[in-house]
């Protein structure tokens, strides 16, 4: 009995909500640290970011974490919707006069709406970046411009730290297979591997002449929404898990508020910086 209740009961649903929500907070932290590299002004910023992106899409430990993240998002969203539907059913007749603002904060009353907006954001965000990284056949590869005897020349950067002249690919001596692999066209053997240029894709996305500004604004709005979700959600998760101790409540609340403001803010700074300041 006890075990089956552990999935279905009201409180158990709350544990899963809290656990997945807190795991997603960890994910956000990691994701943010990666994204912050986009603010780097180093001349190798693009290469470093693309190396990081390669690591994040191939490292087995990261793979496990990313699958956990997908599962968490799906579970959190489904559980959240189930809870919200049940909660609406628990009050079939609404009050004619109701003043919820007298006893609750706005964010706490709108978690489902906020979460749904975040879900829409996550899906569009994954179509824009994640799907291109994973599936786009036309994904550009990282190049670098090197001054060879006064003449700037384009090279592909390869994962072993080497370079392949773009000319050789353009002229057909070397061909690109499987999105990232450089093949010697004559011998038909793989010689080197390139980096997918996620940096370029990202910058181009937020600098599109027509929609760049709109995408930047929508991104910032989504981060505000995330901020509100976390403003209530972070502390709420601890309460759901039963971690409520007068000694630590203040700390958890304060940390949660700080997290809810700082993390979305830093995320939002990145597209703004790209749109307005990257040449």
């Amino acid at each position: 009995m006890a075990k089956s209740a552990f999935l279905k009961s009201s409180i158990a649903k709350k544990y899963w909500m809290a656990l997945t929500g807190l795991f997603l907070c960890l994910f956000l932290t990691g994701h943010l640290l990666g994204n912050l590299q986009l603010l780097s002004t180093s001349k190798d910023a693009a290469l470093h970011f693309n190396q990081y992106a390669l690591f994040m899409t191939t490292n087995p430990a990261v793979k496990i974490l990313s699958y956990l993240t997908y599962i968490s998002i799906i579970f959190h969203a489904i559980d959240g919707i189930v809870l919200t539907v049940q909660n609406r059913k628990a009050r079939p007749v609404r009050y004619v006069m109701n003043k919820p603002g007298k006893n609750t904060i706005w964010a706490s009353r709108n978690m489902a709406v906020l979460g749904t907006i975040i879900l829409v954001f996550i899906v569009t965000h994954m179509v824009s970046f994640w799907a291109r990284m994973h599936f786009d056949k036309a994904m550009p590869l990282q190049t670098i411009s090197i001054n060879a005897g006064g003449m700037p020349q384009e090279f592909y950067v390869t994962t072993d730290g080497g370079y392949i002249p773009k000319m050789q690919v353009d002229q057909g001596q070397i061909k690109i297979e499987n999105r990232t692999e450089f093949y010697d066209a004559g011998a038909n053997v793989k010689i080197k591997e390139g980096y997918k240029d996620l940096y370029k894709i990202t910058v181009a996305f937020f600098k599109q002449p027509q929609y760049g500004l709109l995408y930047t604004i929508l991104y910032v709005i989504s981060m505000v929404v995330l901020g509100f979700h976390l403003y209530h959600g972070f502390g709420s998760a601890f309460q759901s898990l039963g971690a409520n101790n007068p000694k630590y409540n203040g700390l958890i609340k304060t940390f949660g508020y700080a997290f809810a403001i700082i993390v979305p803010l830093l995320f939002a700074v990145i597209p703004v910086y790209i749109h307005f300041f990257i040449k």
Partner: protein
Amino acid sequence: MGSNKNININLKIWRQKDAKSKGQIETYKLDNVSTASSFLEMLDQLNEQLINERKEPVAFDHDCREGICGMCSLYINGQAHGPASKVTTCQLHMRSFKDGDTIYVEPWRSKAFPVIKDLIVDRSAFDRIQQAGGFVSVNTSGRTIDANATPVPKHDADRSFEAAACIGCGACVASCKNGSAMLFVGAKVSQYALLPQGKVEATQRVLNMVRQMDEEGFGNCTNTGACEVECPKGISLENIARMNREYLFASVK
């Protein structure tokens, strides 16, 4: 009595013939209400007026009228037990309102608290939750144990006592946007779980009470905290966390 004065008010009250009928808001004008009277006395005055007009008086719940029984309810102007904090409706006074005010009076709204008539709802769901585990089984047949034989840490005794202050009024359910009963159940679970006498049955108690709570159709807590603000007895959210903790340990046992 110098500060007392009389005010005229407009009332918008939920009227519903019986559980099956569809109800609606009716408007009444009530003059010369003393600000020293309690909200329930004001309703008595309205009912006298209605009876004189040969109309059906408004049905509402009440018993002790001194804030201890939990019988009075009422969602007044968008808040459980009205605008004052930490009071039941019987302890709410008309001095909380101004001359000319329009006051909405509605029953508790919850699937688990169906309306019986007008402002009266059936709160027996709380009784069934209580019967599912809100007790300690003690053998009282001539072998009564001295009350102080079992030492209880002062801190635990205080928390238990605070939880036991819950009068089962249902304001927590009424004010929760999810119609959740977790503050009530949290208080009832905590009151026993904190004491050595209650620890014996702690595992079964929390599992059974939560199961009954879910079966009654109460919603799920999303920690908005409305209940704690509206509870006339100041029951703390800490009790919900304690119940969640108890439930977690009981489930993995």
